[in-house]
């Protein structure tokens, strides 16, 4: 077990190193941030000075080595735009994104499972057909378009919900959260729905497929033959068994939702990490881009590791490291 863990951590370290090189080279290739940021009235000399002050005049390998050595000291660089440590900037924005991602995932489960269950149990009913048709829409409509339509409908035409931003926040555990205030919840409604739409569709499809499969299995038939109540069959025999794959996929997807809430955050001006990364890419705020991507790699590595560990606990047939 210990050797397995060590092995995995080493692997993770290697992945991070390779990723840092790819990210660094990629960002380097996009262009020079000073060209974009500096005033048009700057003289050539002032431009050179600014470039030198940021260490951008060095050859790329030199910049990369500097970056690595700073990284070993826990320093991911300072944002060019905000002049504060990039890591701090990202961590400050993280709660807003987490709040959105977790709410969206919960919504996906709460809405998706009952709908999927119904569609699976009564596949021929017209309601089921429309649920399934709706889920195809949820899959295929681009989320930026849905976001704009939501704003146009609920904010501009109906005036029910605020169009963007976080609204009032309350402090809990030293961090500002929107879900603790009524105004904040109103602000969360549309971005959460927007972010959850794809997830809901996925959960519906997974649940339905699971129900269709399990309903034909021997133990369900046996339960029926035994004369159990229908509700007990559905909620104990069927639901419990189909939940495992659903939870696995949704859990794994949580990472994706956190890392790529970009579109939703941009449209709803939600001040989370996704909006930060898009703004940073537009103005080539290199340290923030690199730090963000490194952080995301770390997050995926950790999630995958946890999933592997949990599997081995849940399913004794999976042995870690054993050949």
């Amino acid at each position: 077990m210990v050797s397995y863990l060590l092995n995995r951590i080493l692997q993770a370290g290697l992945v991070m190193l390779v990723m840092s090189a790819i990210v660094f080279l990629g960002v380097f290739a996009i262009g020079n941030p000073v060209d974009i940021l500096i005033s048009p009235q700057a003289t050539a000399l002032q431009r050179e000075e600014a470039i030198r002050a940021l260490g951008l005049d060095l050859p790329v390998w030199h910049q990369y080595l500097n970056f690595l050595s700073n990284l070993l000291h826990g320093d991911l660089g300072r944002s060019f735009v905000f002049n504060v440590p990039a890591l701090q900037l990202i961590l400050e924005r993280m709660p807003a994104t987490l709040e959105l991602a977790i709410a969206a995932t919960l919504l996906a489960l709460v809405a998706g499972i009952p709908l999927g269950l119904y569609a699976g149990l009564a596949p021929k009913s017209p309601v089921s057909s429309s649920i399934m048709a709706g889920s195809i829409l949820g899959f295929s409509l681009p989320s930026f378009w849905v976001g704009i339509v939501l704003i146009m409908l609920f904010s501009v035409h109906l005036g029910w919900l605020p169009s963007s931003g976080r609204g009032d926040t309350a402090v809990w555990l030293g961090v500002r959260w929107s879900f603790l205030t009524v105004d904040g919840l109103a602000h969360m409604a549309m971005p959460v729905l927007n972010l959850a739409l794809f997830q809901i569709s996925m959960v519906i499809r997974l649940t339905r497929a699971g129900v269709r499969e399990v309903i034909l299995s021997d133990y369900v038939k046996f339960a029926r033959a035994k004369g159990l109540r229908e509700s007990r069959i559905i909620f104990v025999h069927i639901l419990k068994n189909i939940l495992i794959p659903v939870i696995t996929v949704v859990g794994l997807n949580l990472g994706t939702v956190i890392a790529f809430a970009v579109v939703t955050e941009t449209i709803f001006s939600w001040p989370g990490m996704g909006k930060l990364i898009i703004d940073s890419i537009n103005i080539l705020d290199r340290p923030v881009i690199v730090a963000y991507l490194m952080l995301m790699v770390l997050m995926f590595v950790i999630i995958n590791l946890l999933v592997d560990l949990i599997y081995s606990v849940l399913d004794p047939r999976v042995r870690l490291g054993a050949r």
Partner: protein
Amino acid sequence: MKIASLLVAVGLLTGVTSAQSQELVVGSQGDPSLDPHYMYIGTNVAFWRHIYGSLTMHDDKGSPVPDLAESYRLVDDHTWEFKLRPDVKLEDGSMLSADDVVYSLDRAKSIPGNPSPYTVRLESITDVKAVDPTTVRITTDKANPYLPGNLVDIAILPRKATEGKATGDFTSQAGIGEYGRYRVSSFAPGDRVVLDRNEDYWGEKPYWKRVTFRVMPNDASRVAALLAGDVDLVDFVPPTDVKKLRENPNVAVHDGPSTRMMVLLLNYRDGQIAGLTDAGGKPLDKNPLKDVRVRKALSKAMDRQALVDRIMDGTADVATQIAMPGMEGYDPDLKIDNADPQGAKALLAEAGYPNGFGINIACSNNRYPNDARICQAVGQMLARGGFQPKVETLPMSVLMTSLVGSAPDKRDFAIGMLGLGAQGTHPIALPTMVHSVDKASGRGAYNFGGYSNPELDGVIDKAVGTLDSTARNDLMRTAVDRATEEVVVLPLLFQRVLTASKSDLTYTTDPTEETLTWRAKPKAQ
């Protein structure tokens, strides 16, 4: 439905009370830096003008007028003297003094890790001295008529409150030592800044007791927030939305001229350039852009009015020259070529290219309003004028890389489009795009094509060092006329500043594109 109507009622109520309670919510494109000496970009300057001040301020036309300085004058050719107002009260109750000015002009230069320093506005300053508590003398290494105009963009900070504070401290403490029209009440980075009126402000107090800037970089979201009534005013309205907004009775669109000029840069480099090819796609041996007839053909091929009417939906002005009306050097007699594709073809034939040649146009697609669409239209116009254009629209960062290149002799663009905003009263294109590249004087920083004309250089150098405004204006006009005649660059259009608000507000835009909330007032009914 009950809840819905209730919510609507609440919405209407707050709509009414927001004007009465003198609170203004602005949907703002920029995410402001609270340190006024960090990151010189227009949205930051507009923000710190709310909480600090500067020695001079620009008027509606862009000319400098006294602000914290009650008056200023030239002592000799190299020395300016600024007399401070005696009544500028700081947060701690003391008065702003000459020492604060000395401190601020130094601090603005020395912020570490600043990719866009304010230094550009402090060039030629060699010494800043406090003569007495209300008098500052600034010495320059050469005669600099633009000093008062340059100081418009340098924030004056109180030394006592801010000395030793880093940029991060301004953020974490939500503003330090504000003494301007407003003080920062709360700051959530990337989300909002709330300002409360400073009742001790020395000048005319603004109407709004509380101003909230909501950070909304996405154009569509900003406009939607205004339509939904979440914000009272939005800046940088996309030109494509203007028509729709004008038709909406609940919204008022305020527009005014902007100093930002969309301009085409040409590559003057010798030797083969990848962006200039023959019919077979091979680079030409000789650079045709060095022939003024070819450049004139380019200009004749442009239908600038169509760009303004069709692409910009009327939210721009045709640029007849690199100066805009009201600027130094503007020549009202100068006419730009009307669109004349036949004339362009004739000129091309005369220059030895009867079948035209392949020419690349590189533009940004994420920086200026409608930049990619302007570029595509320019491509079509060139095709009609007998060229074989190839349009490339790129993210700004990539465009800059291709314009700057790895070295001046490796630049492979043929035509590049940039938007150049002038912060001041003279056509900034003259010293930055028309003047030859000269590291010593710092001129020609945007002359990526390497144009060089010693005669024009001489006129520009003389103009920017002439203290007498009439003589300077004449020299500038000579330079503008020569640059137009030579078609050094191709000015296309001047953008307009587009701001929109609820219909019960009035607002006056500023040519610098700064959003200054004290210019927004409720309509008198």
